[in-house]
C-alpha cells in the first residue's frame, strides 16, 4: 500500500506556529503575573508578619554581666578584684554536636577531658543561646592553639571577660572563700536572668555569703547578629538603633580583716594544721581568720582541673576544710576561766577558797581517779592560781559542785554549743552537752563523771576556734558581747557611698558582782606570769596578756597509763590551744589559737598568739610583708580574637 505523502504546507505551518506562539506568550505573561501576585501577597498583605520575623532574626539580646564588687581589708588594700581573662565559650545553639566538639577541644588540651560529661550536661540544661564558659582563663599557648583550630569549632569563641583575682593568693582564703564556674546545682537556685553572661558565682566564704551584694545587677543590650549568630556592627550602610540596659556593678565590701595580721597568723601556723581567730572585743570585728593548710582560690576562679581538685580534696591534711569555722575540738583547759566565771556567778565557790590538789580527783563513793596533768598535784590553790597553773583537780571539783545544768546554762550564755552567727556561712555549732542532749543522743542518763571532765573542757564538749575567740572577747570586754563579723562596711556601687555597718551587740553578760571579772582576768594574767603555763612564750612584752592555755586529749589513756607524746601516733597527739586578750586591762584584741596534734598549748600555740599581739599592738609585722603577685593576664594592647 502506498503511503500518503504529506507535502510541507508553509503557510499552514506558519499559522500553526503563530497560534502556538501567541498561546505561549499569553501563558508566559499569565504565569509571571501569578508570580507578581504571589509577591504582592508576601510584600503587601503579609508584610507586617514578615517584617516582625526579620526583626526577630537579627536582633538578639546580649547579656551584660555586672562587675563583681571588690573586697578590701581593714587597711583599704584590695584582696579580691577583677582582672581581664580570656575565656573560651561555647554557644550550644550554634554547635551541632556538643559532646563531639568538647571531645575535640579536650584532645587539643583546651578543655579538661574529665569535665567533658559535666560540660555537656551544662550545655543541655542551660539556655541554648547563652554562651557556656568552657575554660575560664586561657594561657597564651592555649590562645595560639585555639587560633589555629578555630575554623573547626563553629560556635566556640574566645571572649575577654573579667575574672576574679585574689592578689594574696592562699592567704585569707578561709575567710574570703572563692568564686568559681556556675554549676548545675547553682543553676537550679539562681535567677538565670541575673546571671546571664556571668561565668562565676560565689561558692564559699564571704564570696558566697555576700553573693547578693557582690554580684550586682545584670543588664543587656540588643545586638545585630548574622545567620551564624555572630555579632555584626552595622547593617549595610545604615546604623540601627539598638537598646542597651546597662548592668550595675556589685557593692564593694570592707572587712575588719587586716592582711598584715592575717599574714602573721598564717605564717605562725605554717607547716602545721590549725586555726587562728582574732577578734576585736569592742566591735566583734574579725582581724584575722586563718585555717591552715590553705589553698589558692585563684585556681578555682580560673578553672581548676579535676586532677588538681582531687588532689586538694583527698589531701590528708584537708586544706579545703575550714578549721576556724567548721573544726570542732575539745577546748581543754581554755574553758577553765569560763568554768570559774560560772562558779562565781552561781555562788558555788568563793574565789579565795583554797583547794588541795594531790594530782587526782575522785567523786564521792567512787574510786576512779580523775588525774591532774601534774602528776604530783599543785598543792593548795585558790581560783586565780588554779587558772594560772591550770589545776585540773580544782575544776573537776568546781564542775561537780555546779552540776551539768548550770554548766550548760553558763557555757551556752558564753556562746558554746551554738553558732556565733559570724557573717560567713558554713559555721558549725560545736557541742555543749546537757542531760537532755545525752538522753536524746545516747539514750543514757547523765553521770556525774560526765560533768567532771566537762570541767576541764573534755568529754562531750566540742568548740570551734571562732567560738573560743568569741568567748575570750566577751571575757576581755567584761561581759559586753558582739557578734563576730568580717564585713564592717559596704560601698553602694550606684552612689559610691560607704555605709558603715554598726557592730552587732548581743545580750551582754552581766554578773551579779561585776568585781568578779577581775578575779577571772587576774587569773588569766597570772597565766603569763611566773608560775603560769604560758610564761615562756609571753616573756618581755611591753603590754600585759591575759590568757589561758589548753592541751586537749584526742586519745584516751588507760587508768594507769602515762601519756608520752613520742609513743602516740602523730595524729593522736594532744591538740594545743590558747586563748588570750591584750592589753589585759584595756583589751584591743582577743585571740584563739588551735593547733591540731600540736601538743602543749603554752609551748606551741601561745608563741603564735604573742606574735599576733606584737604585730597588732606594736606594729611588729613579719619581715616578709606579703607583696601581691601580679595578676596572671594583662590585656595585650592589640588583640583580635573576635571574627
Amino acid at each position, binding site marked *: 500500500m502506498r503511503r500518503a505523502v504529506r507535502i510541507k*504546507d508553509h503557510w499552514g505551518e506558519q499559522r500553526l506556529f503563530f497560534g502556538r506562539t501567541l498561546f505561549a506568550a499569553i501563558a508566559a505573561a499569565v504565569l509571571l503575573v501569578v*508570580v507578581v501576585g504571589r509577591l504582592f501577597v508576601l*510584600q503587601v498583605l503579609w*508584610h507586617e508578619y514578615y517584617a516582625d520575623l*526579620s526583626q526577630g532574626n*537579627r536582633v538578639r539580646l546580649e547579656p551584660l554581666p555586672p562587675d563583681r564588687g571588690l573586697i578590701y581589708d581593714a587597711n583599704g588594700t584590695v584582696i579580691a578584684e577583677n582582672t581581664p581573662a580570656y575565656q573560651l565559650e561555647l554557644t550550644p545553639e550554634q554547635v551541632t554536636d556538643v559532646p563531639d566538639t568538647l571531645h575535640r577541644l579536650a584532645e587539643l588540651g583546651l578543655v579538661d577531658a574529665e569535665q567533658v560529661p559535666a560540660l555537656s550536661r551544662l550545655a543541655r540544661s542551660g539556655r541554648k543561646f547563652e554562651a557556656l564558659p568552657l575554660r575560664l582563663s586561657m594561657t597564651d599557648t592555649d590562645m595560639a592553639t585555639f587560633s589555629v583550630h578555630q575554623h573547626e569549632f563553629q560556635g566556640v569563641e574566645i571572649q575577654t571577660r573579667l575574672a576574679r583575682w585574689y592578689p594574696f593568693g592562699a592567704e585569707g582564703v578561709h575567710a574570703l572563700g572563692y568564686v568559681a564556674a556556675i554549676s548545675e546545682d547553682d543553676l537550679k537556685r539562681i535567677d538565670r536572668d541575673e546571671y546571664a553572661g556571668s561565668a562565676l558565682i560565689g561558692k564559699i566564704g564571704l564570696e558566697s555569703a555576700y553573693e547578693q551584694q557582690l554580684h550586682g545587677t545584670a543588664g543587656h543590650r540588643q545586638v545585630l547578629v548574622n545567620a551564624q549568630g555572630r555579632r555584626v556592627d552595622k547593617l549595610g*550602610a545604615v546604623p540601627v538603633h539598638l537598646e542597651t540596659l546597662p548592668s550595675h556593678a556589685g557593692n564593694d565590701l570592707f572587712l575588719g580583716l587586716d592582711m598584715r595580721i592575717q599574714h602573721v597568723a598564717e605564717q605562725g601556723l605554717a607547716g602545721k594544721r590549725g586555726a587562728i581567730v582574732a577578734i576585736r572585743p569592742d566591735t566583734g570585728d574579725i582581724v584575722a581568720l586563718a585555717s591552715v593548710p590553705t589553698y589558692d582560690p585563684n585556681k578555682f576562679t580560673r578553672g581548676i582541673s579535676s586532677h588538681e581538685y582531687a588532689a586538694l580534696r583527698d589531701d590528708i591534711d584537708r586544706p579545703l576544710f575550714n578549721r576556724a569555722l567548721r573544726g570542732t575540738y575539745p577546748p581543754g583547759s581554755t574553758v577553765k576561766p569560763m568554768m570559774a566565771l560560772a562558779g562565781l556567778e552561781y555562788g558555788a565557790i568563793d574565789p579565795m577558797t583554797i583547794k588541795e590538789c594531790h594530782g587526782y580527783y575522785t567523786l564521792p563513793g567512787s574510786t576512779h581517779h580523775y588525774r591532774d596533768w601534774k602528776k604530783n598535784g599543785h598543792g593548795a590553790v585558790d581560783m586565780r592560781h588554779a587558772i594560772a597553773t591550770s589545776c585540773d583537780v580544782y575544776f573537776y571539783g568546781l564542775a561537780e559542785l555546779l552540776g551539768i545544768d548550770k554548766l550548760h546554762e553558763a557555757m551556752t550564755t558564753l556562746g558554746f554549743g551554738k553558732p556565733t552567727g559570724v557573717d560567713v556561712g558554713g559555721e558549725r555549732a560545736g557541742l555543749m552537752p546537757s542531760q537532755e542532749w545525752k538522753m536524746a543522743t545516747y539514750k543514757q542518763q547523765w553521770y556525774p563523771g560526765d560533768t567532771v571532765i566537762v570541767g576541764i573542757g573534755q568529754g562531750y564538749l566540742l568548740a570551734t576556734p571562732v567560738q573560743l575567740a568569741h568567748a575570750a572577747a566577751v571575757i576581755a570586754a567584761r561581759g559586753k558581747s558582739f557578734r563576730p563579723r568580717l564585713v564592717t562596711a559596704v560601698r553602694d556601687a550606684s552612689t559610691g557611698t560607704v555605709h558603715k555597718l554598726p557592730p552587732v551587740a548581743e545580750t551582754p553578760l552581766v554578773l551579779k558582782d561585776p568585781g568578779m571579772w577581775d578575779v577571772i582576768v587576774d587569773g588569766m594574767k597570772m597565766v603569763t606570769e611566773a608560775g603560769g603555763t604560758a610564761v615562756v612564750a609571753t616573756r618581755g612584752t611591753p603590754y600585759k596578756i591575759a590568757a589561758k592555755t589548753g592541751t586537749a586529749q584526742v586519745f584516751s589513756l588507760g587508768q594507769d597509763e602515762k601519756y608520752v607524746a613520742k609513743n602516740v601516733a602523730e595524729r593522736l597527739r594532744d591538740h594545743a590551744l590558747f586563748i588570750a586578750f591584750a592589753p589585759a586591762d584595756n583589751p584591743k584584741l582577743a585571740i584563739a589559737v588551735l593547733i591540731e596534734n600540736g601538743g602543749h598549748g603554752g609551748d606551741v600555740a601561745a608563741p603564735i598568739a604573742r606574735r599576733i599581739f606584737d604585730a597588732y599592738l606594736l606594729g611588729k609585722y613579719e619581715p616578709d610583708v606579703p607583696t601581691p603577685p601580679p595578676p596572671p593576664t594583662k590585656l595585650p594592647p592589640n588583640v583580635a580574637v573576635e571574627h
Partner: protein
Amino acid sequence: MLFDADATSTTRRTLSATGRILRGLHLDGPLLALLGAVVAFGLFVLYSATGENLAQWISQLERLALAMAALVALAQVPPSWLRRISPLLYGIGVVLLIAVAVHGSVGNGAQRWLDLKVVRFQPSEIMKLAVPMMCAWYLHERPLPPSLRDVVVLLVIIVVPAALIAKQPDLGTALLVGSAGLLVLFLGGMSIWIILLGAGAIAAVVPVAWHFMHDYQRQRVLTFIDPSTDPLGAGYHSIQSQIAIGSGGLFGKGWMNGSQAQLEFLPERSTDFIFAVIGEELGLLGQAFLIGLYLAVIGRSLYLSAEAQNTYARLVCGSFALTFFVYAFVNTGMVSGILPVVGVPLPLVSYGGTAMVTLLASFGVMMSLVGHRKLVGA
C-alpha cells in the same frame, strides 16, 4: 535653541548610524537594549547581594563580557551553517555527557564537570542549545504538525540527554534542557491530545520518579509542600527567602540594607536566591520591574521568532524565548515559594555559572537566525 534642526538631525543621524552598525552585525537593537537593561539591573543588585564583594562583582563582569562576545560572535554565523551543525553539536554533547557520567569530577556533591585540563566545563550547558537546535533540525524538512513517529523520535532525542543530566544529579538543568526540547515540539504544532496524554503519563510516572529520586530531591519536594516541617534544614531556604521578600514590602528596605541578605540569613543570596535580595532591598516595585523586563525580552524574542523566515529559525528562536521564560518563572516561583526549590538561576542576574554565557549565546543564535534575512528576490 534647544530643539534646533541641526541637533535633531544629528540625533537622527546617530540613530540611523547605530541602526546600520547593528544591522551590519545582524544584531536586533531592541532585544539587545532589553538584555542590556536586565544585565545592568543584575549587576546593580549583585553588588549588594555579594556583600560589597568587589572581586566577585568584577568576575561577574568578566563573565558578562565573555557572554556578550559569544552573543555577537554567534550572531555572525550564517543560519544555514548553524542548522547544519545542529546534529553534530548534539552528538558531541551526548558523548560528553556520557564522558562526564563515567569520568567527570564531582563538584558541589554532583557530577557535572568535565575537566579538559584547560577549562572545566559542563557539557549539560551545551545541551541547552543543542537539544532545541537538534529538534528543530529534525522537524525542519518534515511537514508540520509532526507525525506520531516524529514525536516519538524527538522524545528520544530529548529524554536521553535530559536523563543523563538528571542523573548527575542536576534537576534544574535537566528541567531546562527537557523543556527546551519539548517547547520545540509544542511550537512545531504537536497535537494537543498528545500533550494532554503526556501530562497524564507524567502524573502516572510521579510515584516511579519518586522511587528513583535522591534523598535531597525528595526532601525538597516534601519541604516545598510544607517548609515549616524542617525550618533549619531543607525548608530553611524557602522560609528565609519568603521572610526576606515579605519584609521588603512595597518599596523595600533600600539597596544594601536588606537585613536578611546582608546578615547572611538568606542562603545562596547572590546565586539562586538573588531574587529574594531584590524583594527585600527594592521591594515589590523592584521585583515587578525585573519581571516586566523579562516579559519584554520574552515578548520581543517571540516577535522575532514569528518574523523568522523558515521553520528551523522559528522553532529554535521560539524555544529559546520560552526557555528564557522557564528560567525566569521557575526561579521567581521557587524563591517566592510557589514552586519547589530547584537549582535554576535567575536569568542574567544570578552570580556566576555558565548559565549566563549559555543564555546570551542562545540570544546570539537567535539574532543570527533572524538577522540574516534573505531579501525577497535577491
